């Protein structure tokens, strides 16, 4: 199969055109800088935040302790079996994406996505070393000289440094951060740490430095999904062609108006195109390549202010409103509608359920496994006994004694051979801090109690200190 296409009409592959985004100032740019500083600040510094959990437990606020299978997030400690909290978070994240999208388009892409945030940072570095758009274009067109090489080398070096630090911060979430930093500096850290730093250095450098808008246009699935989720009322960064067309210069517009011809506000200065990080023309309408970063709004507003025309030729609006204005109707804004309400409602339901679950979750757990071979035994005195494997988890950082009892069959007694009986309880098992233990337990029912083939029982473990009680349902098997 030929790469050029079997029937020879045009290439199947084209080289991407390099985009040279121009510097821009304005409220949206300011907001994006603030989000960038906040997001990267959290990402780079969070591992160093301490959180006292008492002795025996790590004091890092956010830590994924893979070897010990624990996840710590401030006051929350999750065990692997509680991974459904992450499922809940993912559900909320997806719905939040839908909600943002139905209110104001690709807010995620334009402001919050790591690809956007890091690309913004890398672009700032590029601008610092190689100058703004025109200078960069000139440099790339001119033959290489020592100055250009020096500047490019410096740029790539800083990029690599940022990328390396990005990978470095990543691994700090998986081990005690200050210790790991010291180990990394003295080359004593585990090989996996260096490997992951290398991987993330590579991906950050490549994606944010080299690939940039190509990631959004060709690699990311979200633009495709987003197009299916949008509707007529979702705000998008929109060129108001009702006001902008026909495009002409200020002088031409003055001439046209003098002879009562229509003249649009767009002066065709191409500033919206020059600042665009994906290199598109917003005036072509909504398109997949637009990440809706709003920088063209800032650029256009600056021009409009300079030539004394109202701002907002490019603004968050809907195509429907543009059409309404053309028809002489008032624009309609409906941020509160069935779609947004439903998304918000599902987010609150899932979030509420997770909060409730988190607030009421127990710090102990019990699971019971009935012995199947044999299902029951008859003892010498004629009583019937079933064996169970009971696993008790203690999620608190101290020793906890659990009394294990059984209910459901008259006369049934639960014993644990390895646990010494106390004055009040037949079976008390002490579980060490932050640990889970398995014990073999026997439930014995005296000879004269009538038994079915199977009867429901409830096995209970009660914390003798804190009073916490956990239950598990199982069966008692008879002859």
């Amino acid at each position: 199969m030929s790469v050029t296409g079997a029937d020879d009409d045009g290439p199947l592959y084209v080289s991407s055109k390099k985009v040279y985004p121009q510097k821009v100032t304005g409220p949206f740019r300011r907001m994006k800088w603030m989000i960038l500083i906040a997001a990267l600040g959290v990402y780079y510094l969070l591992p160093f935040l301490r959180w006292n959990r008492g002795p025996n437990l790590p004091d890092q606020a956010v830590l994924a302790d893979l070897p010990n299978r624990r996840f710590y997030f401030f006051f929350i400690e999750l065990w692997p079996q509680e991974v459904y909290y992450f499922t809940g978070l993912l559900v909320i994240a997806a719905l939040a994406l839908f909600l943002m999208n139905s209110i104001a388009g690709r807010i995620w892409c334009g402001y919050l996505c790591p690809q956007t945030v890091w690309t913004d940072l890398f672009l700032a570095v590029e601008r610092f070393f190689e100058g703004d758009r025109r200078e960069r274009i000139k440099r790339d067109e001119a033959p290489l000289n020592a100055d250009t090489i020096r500047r490019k080398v410096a740029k790539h070096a800083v990029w690599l440094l940022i990328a390396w630090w990005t990978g470095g911060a990543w691994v700090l979430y998986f081990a005690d951060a200050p210790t790991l930093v010291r180990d990394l500096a003295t080359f004593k850290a585990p090989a996996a740490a260096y490997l992951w730093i290398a991987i993330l250095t590579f991906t950050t450098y490549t994606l944010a430095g080299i690939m940039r808008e190509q990631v959004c246009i060709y690699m990311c699935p979200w633009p495709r999904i987003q197009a299916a989720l949008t509707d007529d009322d979702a705000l998008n960064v929109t060129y108001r062609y009702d006001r902008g067309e026909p495009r002409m210069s200020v002088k031409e517009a003055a001439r046209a108006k003098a002879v009562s011809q229509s003249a649009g506000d767009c002066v065709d200065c191409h500033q919206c195109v020059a600042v665009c990080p994906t290199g598109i023309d917003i005036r072509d309408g909504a398109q997949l390549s637009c990440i809706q970063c709003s920088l063209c709004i800032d650029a256009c507003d600056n021009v409009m202010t300079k030539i004394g025309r109202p701002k907002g030729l490019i603004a968050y609006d809907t195509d429907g409103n543009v059409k309404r204005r053309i028809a002489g109707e008032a624009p309609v804004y409906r941020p509160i509608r069935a779609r947004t309400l439903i998304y918000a409602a599902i987010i609150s339901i899932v979030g509420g359920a997770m909060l409730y679950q988190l607030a009421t979750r127990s710090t102990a757990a019990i699971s019971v496994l009935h012995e199947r071979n044999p299902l029951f035994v008859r003892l010498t005195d004629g009583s019937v006994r079933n064996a169970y494997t009971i696993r008790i988890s203690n999620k608190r950082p101290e020793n906890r004694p659990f009394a294990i009892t059984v209910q459901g069959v008259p006369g049934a007694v639960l014993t644990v051979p390895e646990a010494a009986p106390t004055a009040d309880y037949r079976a008390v098992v002490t579980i060490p801090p932050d640990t889970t233990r398995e014990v073999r337990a026997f439930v014995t029912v005296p000879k004269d109690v009538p038994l079915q083939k199977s009867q429901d029982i409830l096995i209970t473990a009660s914390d003798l200190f804190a009073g916490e009680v956990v239950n598990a349902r199982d069966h008692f098997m008879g002859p």
Partner: protein
Amino acid sequence: MSHDTAHGNHELVAEKVDAPTGQTIRSHEWDGITELNTPLPRWWINILYATILWSIGYWVVYPSWPLVSDYARGVVGYSSREEVAADLDAIKAFRAKQASGLEKASLEDIAKTPDLRRVALAAGRAAFGDNCAPCHGAGGAGAPGYPNLNDDDWLWGGTLDAIHQTLTNGVRVAGNDKTRIGLMSAFGRDGVLKTDEVRAVANHVRTLANLDAEKNYDQAKGSKVFADNCASCHGPQGKGSIEFGAPNLTDGIWLYGSNLADIIETVTNGRQGVMPAWGGRLDPVTIKALSVYVQSLGGGK
């Protein structure tokens, strides 16, 4: 890249353009259905080429091509089998370290110390599955002739030491002078008891366990035969004796069945169940672990 020159001849052909998208339309057509040409970025296909190059690197570095009697081993000499072997060695070393704790400790200490006990139970469970399960069942439920290890009835004693002794020397192992020996003779076959005496004593044994006997059996003959022949091992009340491995006949647990026919069969032909001596077959640590595990099944005695 220079696709303009590579495909310069196309530019003479008038390209049809799709008005809404501004993209060119490819020349092929099926019943009026045409296709837009949306070229992928060049780097996309370059990644494919890069992966092909990468795979060649793989062939060189890692084992790849099968040969007639061997395979291309790759320059780093990686072998997943060696990796497994290394992992196995590591786990064996780890187990040996844990087992050294069992080696020094007494059986009682192992049972009482939670850390040692956990190791012993895990090792014992594995060894039980490998060696004991064929007769006693995976969970030690037993079968006719093979004792259930989950109950509280221990033919040869249910203390840790007794279980350890039974495991090490077996039951009725020829040539082992420490083996468990008990003789349940073939009273009928050897002519010690006549058929009617066998039937009478079998009925008598059933009454010991509060089971129904035949209405018209000879009670006097039954109890006399029992006293003369059985009581020496099973005791006058039939309570059994661990010393001879003689089962308690008054409880509800029957190794060979409690039907009259089963008991007649037992008295007529005798019972000589055997268990191999595991000392010498299994290492001492494994036997210790097994002792603790087997006792944990029924809770011991």
